[in-house]
């Protein structure tokens, strides 16, 4: 123990020295000077002050995008094919992943349903749900957003636009192989890391086909300043490959140590991958749709670095009360609580911007999706910080409450953001309006109502389950039987969410199959990049 504390103290000292050196460099090279004007990087001349809602608001007669920018049209036409390939893949995985999720949910209260084959057992169906919605839907969908927005933000066309298409094909092949492997019982066996490591090699190769074009595009940018969205995205595409490769290296870790690697990885998939990608998307789409810059640009700097520092160390709160050293558990709890800092910074920026322009929520369903997603990020993070505190954690740790919490983050935050972004992007990607605009509102209410039922069922049921397990005078049986109505409620919510996803995928497919009128606008005049804004 003495050695550990001494080591940690020495380490803190060295790290502080490095941080100080970096701070001096950053101040002296004016990396830290901020002004609100930089928040306007995302607009081209004439865009600011006008809401941007292409072809999704049925109330308005405007069928033509309000502002036509030939240079950006040149940028968009390069990104359109890779973005379409990525989104079509993501939406397919969403449908399959949702069906597996609904099946798993039903099996928990109908345990004798579909029990004749191993691939239909709860343990495999649940795993397929998580794997497909995280690596298929969320990751590919968010990468598609990055491929679309980053070139627009950097005022230059996407470099190597064919690589992401190859990447999408390889990624899909890897996921199909992974799905078949898990369904047949071939798994690495750790949560979030079930895809066999042999298949993970293909995923890693595919991932590099996404990272390389983005880095090249960022390096060739025509704006001096990198907008806040760019910090989150550039950091995320550095973090995730490292996390994924280290956590999947086989035969290195054993036992309790392997558990720390497992949760270091699994929480960082949320914290350093899905979260920065989706928060960055919010930082772009919210001001873009409203037509006004975010509330406080300098606050976004604090939010970003605090997220990097604190979120990277929260993972071991999954092992509270477990067989790992006390100090590392406590470290993760402290960092979990510190997450209030970056979350409040993002909340002030995003929610105040929306609240000051609440009129936009009435006209723009994409903004409704994205700002509700941002609210759910705040709520999920607050809930996570509180849930890591020992006295709360001991009740909810091994219960369905955790599943509800995970879905508040990974579904209500990430997926709502994705839905909104896709509804906003696709008219520009395809050059067509959405064929059935009214179903967008229906989709919104299906998934919002479904998720509400889902979340409150599991949260309330999970607390009762945890209290029953902590009470030594009650048999274990009580914690199972009391949960049943809540599990049924969760299935109702999950069915509504799945219905929303089927509607969404049908609408998406109809748009790709050209069931909607083409939006008339002139062909791109040039593919040369715009000059610095």
């Amino acid at each position: 123990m003495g050695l550990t504390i001494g080591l940690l103290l020495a380490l803190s000292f060295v790290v502080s020295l490095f941080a100080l050196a970096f701070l001096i460099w950053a101040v002296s090279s004016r990396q830290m000077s901020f002004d609100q004007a930089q928040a306007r990087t995302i607009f081209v001349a004439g865009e600011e002050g006008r809401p941007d809602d292409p072809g999704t608001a049925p109330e308005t007669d405007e069928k033509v995008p309000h502002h036509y920018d030939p240079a950006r049209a040149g940028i968009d036409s390069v990104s359109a094919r890779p973005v379409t390939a990525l989104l079509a893949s993501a939406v397919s995985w969403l449908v399959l992943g949702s069906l597996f999720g609904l099946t798993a949910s039903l099996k928990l209260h109908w345990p004798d349903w579909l029990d004749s084959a191993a691939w239909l057992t709860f343990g495999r169906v649940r795993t397929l749900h998580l794997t497909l919605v995280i690596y298929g839907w969320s990751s590919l969908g968010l990468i598609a957003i990055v491929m679309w927005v980053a070139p627009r933000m950097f005022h230059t066309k996407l470099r190597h636009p064919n690589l992401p298409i190859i990447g999408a094909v390889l990624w899909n092949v890897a996921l199909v192989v992974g799905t078949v492997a898990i369904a047949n019982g071939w798994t690495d066996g750790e949560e979030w890391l079930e895809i066999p490591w042999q298949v993970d090699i293909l995923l890693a190769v595919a991932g590099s086909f996404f990272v390389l074009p983005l880095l090249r595009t960022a390096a060739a940018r025509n704006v001096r300043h990198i907008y806040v969205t760019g910090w989150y995205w550039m950091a995320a595409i550095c973090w995730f490959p490292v996390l994924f490769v280290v956590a999947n290296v086989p035969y290195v870790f054993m036992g309790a140590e392997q558990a720390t690697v497992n949760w270091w990885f699994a929480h960082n998939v949320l914290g350093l991958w899905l979260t920065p990608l989706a928060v960055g998307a919010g930082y772009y789409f919210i001001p873009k749709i409203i037509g006004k810059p975010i509330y406080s640009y300098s606050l976004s700097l604090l939010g970003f670095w605090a997220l990097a520092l604190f979120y990277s160390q929260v993972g071991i709160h999954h092992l509270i009360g477990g067989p790992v050293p006390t100090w590392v558990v406590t470290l993760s709890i402290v960092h979990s609580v510190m997450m209030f800092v970056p979350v409040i910074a993002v909340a002030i920026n995003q929610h105040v911007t929306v609240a000051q322009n609440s009129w936009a929520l009435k006209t723009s369903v994409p903004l409704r999706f994205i700002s509700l997603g941002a609210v759910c990020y705040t709520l999920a993070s607050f809930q996570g910080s509180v849930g890591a505190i020992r006295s709360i954690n001991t009740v909810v740790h091994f219960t369905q409450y955790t599943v509800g919490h995970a879905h508040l983050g990974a579904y209500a935050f990430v997926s709502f953001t994705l839905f909104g972004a896709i509804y906003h992007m696709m008219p520009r990607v395809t050059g067509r309006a959405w064929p059935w605009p009214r179903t967008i509102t229906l989709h919104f209410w299906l998934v919002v109502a479904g998720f509400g039922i889902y979340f409150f069922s599991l949260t309330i049921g999970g607390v009762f389950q945890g209290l029953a397990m902590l009470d030594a005078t009650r048999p274990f049986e009580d914690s199972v039987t009391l949960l049943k109505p809540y599990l049924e409620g969760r299935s109702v919510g999950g069915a509504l969410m799945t219905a929303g996803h089927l509607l969404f995928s049908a609408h998406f497919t109809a748009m790709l199959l050209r069931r909607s009128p083409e939006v008339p606008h002139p062909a791109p005049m040039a593919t040369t990049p715009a000059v610095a804004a």
Partner: protein
Amino acid sequence: MNRILPLGILALAILAFATLLLVIVPGMQIRAQPATPGLQPYTQMELRGRQSYVSQGCVYCHSQQPRIPDQAPDGERGWGRAAVASDYAYDSPHLLGTMRTGPDLLNVGARLPSRDWQLAHLYQPRSISPWSIMPAYPFLFTVKDRAAPGDVVVAVPAGQGPRNGVVVAKPEALDLVAYLLSLDRTMPAPVNGERDDGYARIKR
């Protein structure tokens, strides 16, 4: 921020720092401890059964990490003493779990040591515990007209089995039960065992 390279370097440095604290230093502490005295490595049959436990996804409902009495009544429920890191010296992949839809299983071999009970429970959990929501695993068994020599016949409670014939355990079921019965950490924990003692109340 106006530069990509410093952003990437600092972002990766922060991740490296987190990795050092969450993985490398605790890993050094955990590796410094020998396996709990009395803990046996798994046999080939138990390892096959463990692989089956992994591939069926048992870990998604069953934890393998009893906690200290100051935190939770795991011991009173018969789930065993609080686990320490060295109890898992032979475990890969680890199966600590994050959910207790079903009970903790780190000591199920000591708590429910009957092979017949385990086989019948795997074949149809509700034949033993009507309230259970555990999946049944009929595909780990075959139904035969009559048992051949060497067959292990499952003692399915009356009315719960097939109308005709007997239920015979496939080798996979026997391996899985061998693994479950090997789950026994009732030997005393080493005094300096690593675990989260954050809930320990100070003894007067």
